[in-house]
């Protein structure tokens, strides 16, 4: 069955961990959860493919885990708080994973964060919605209050043009 379409599918570079992915990714996430125990980490490291068989992953999911394709894991139902445990098992910091997922070097990623992070401008929408959310458009709020004050000034019977002079 094809994935249901949602408004948030329009957000670029983002795999929202929704109820459908949660269902599909149960195996991946429970596998990652098992890595909280040292004995399991050792068993996994000793024979990864064999260890994964316990978790009923699909062939695509198994491949994504073995290849450490973190974006693919998210797409197939993994959740970042869980997949991060796999990263930790490999001895990687979180910023290393972030760099892998964003296709940059760890240094470049760290520099980007120090400079204030990735801008939302140009990163809002696949379909090209570039206007900020309504809540942020201070203009609308200002226009509203301007309209209010205009209404007030009207009540005082001041002509509109007088204000503009």
């Amino acid at each position, binding site marked *: 069955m094809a994935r249901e379409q949602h408004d948030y599918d329009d957000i670029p570079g983002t795999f929202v961990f929704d*109820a459908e992915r949660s269902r599909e990714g149960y195996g991946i996430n429970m596998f990652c959860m098992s890595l909280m125990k040292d004995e399991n980490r050792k068993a996994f490291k000793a024979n990864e493919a064999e260890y994964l068989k316990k978790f009923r992953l699909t062939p695509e999911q198994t491949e994504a885990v073995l290849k450490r394709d973190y974006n693919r894991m998210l797409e197939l139902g993994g959740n970042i708080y869980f997949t991060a445990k796999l990263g930790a098992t490999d001895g990687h910091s979180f910023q290393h994973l972030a760099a892998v997922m964003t296709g940059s070097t760890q240094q470049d990623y760290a520099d980007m964060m120090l400079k204030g*992070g990735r801008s939302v401008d140009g990163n809002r929408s696949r379909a090209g919605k570039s206007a900020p*959310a309504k809540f942020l458009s201070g203009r609308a709020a200002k226009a509203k209050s301007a309209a209010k004050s205009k209404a007030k000034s009207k009540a005082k019977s001041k002509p509109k043009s007088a204000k503009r002079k």
Partner: protein
Amino acid sequence: MARIIAGVGSSHVPAIGAALDNGKTEEPYWKRVFSGFEKSQEWMRETKPDLAIIVYNDHASAFSVDLIPTFALGCAAEFPPADEGWGPRPVPVVKGHPALASHIAQSVILDEFDLTICNKMEVDHGMTVPMNLLFGKVDKNGHWPCPVIPLAVNVVMYPPPTGHRCYMLGRAIKKAVESYPDDLRVVIFGTGGLSHQISGPRAGLINSKWDKAFLDNLSKDPQKLVKIPHIDYMREAGAEGIEMVMWLIMRGALDDKVDEVYRFYTVPASNTAVGHIILENRAKSGKAAGRRRPAAGRLKRAAARMKVERIRS
């Protein structure tokens, strides 16, 4: 009668806990973050609440994907720190307040908020990092300054509860606290956020403009925040930025009009914009303390404004 006297909003970035546990607080990168909470710790020492209600989320520690409760209230006598893969954080076991917690559960469930009751629960950095930021470092064998009632919210699996639902739950918690007979002064924490995305190719997203507007409205016009749809949080503040709905439970538990006594904002801590705010309910008129408060509030606000770190654009 118990009452909620103030609300605290704070990020709960795990790396902050790691920096604290590994003695990195004096490094310039981390000093920038920790120094923003010095005034808050002073405020907390002066305020001396009898109890804290802490709204937070679990990060695949106490809850896997076996159980995903939307709202889970900790009613246990104590909450051990969870092993998040590196051993439990070296912080004391968190003492609960089962009597008030079960009172809250009974009250809010009858107010139609169908909570999950947790009589056994471990707590992760989502709760213990804000505790450290506000209470300071506490030795593993020491004691936190007050008992805590944890309220874990699902913000990991979409959809989390709506902002409106969170706000209304806050309202119901306020009512529940105020119907508890013992005189307890309660501080409520909303944690998580602010803008951040840690998953996928768009990881690293920060939106300081959003964060500032969120903090401004949190103090002055929370009704505006209550209406924000989930898609806006995720698009503007990052897939994981949706955690910010938890701050609305805190805000809902406060009075309509509050005094913002402190604010701090800095980018980044690890992958996240760190936001922090302290909001006080205005003391009831007629009390001597009530008359003194507004002036103190103004002074504190002025100090807070100076502390707010300018965000690099």
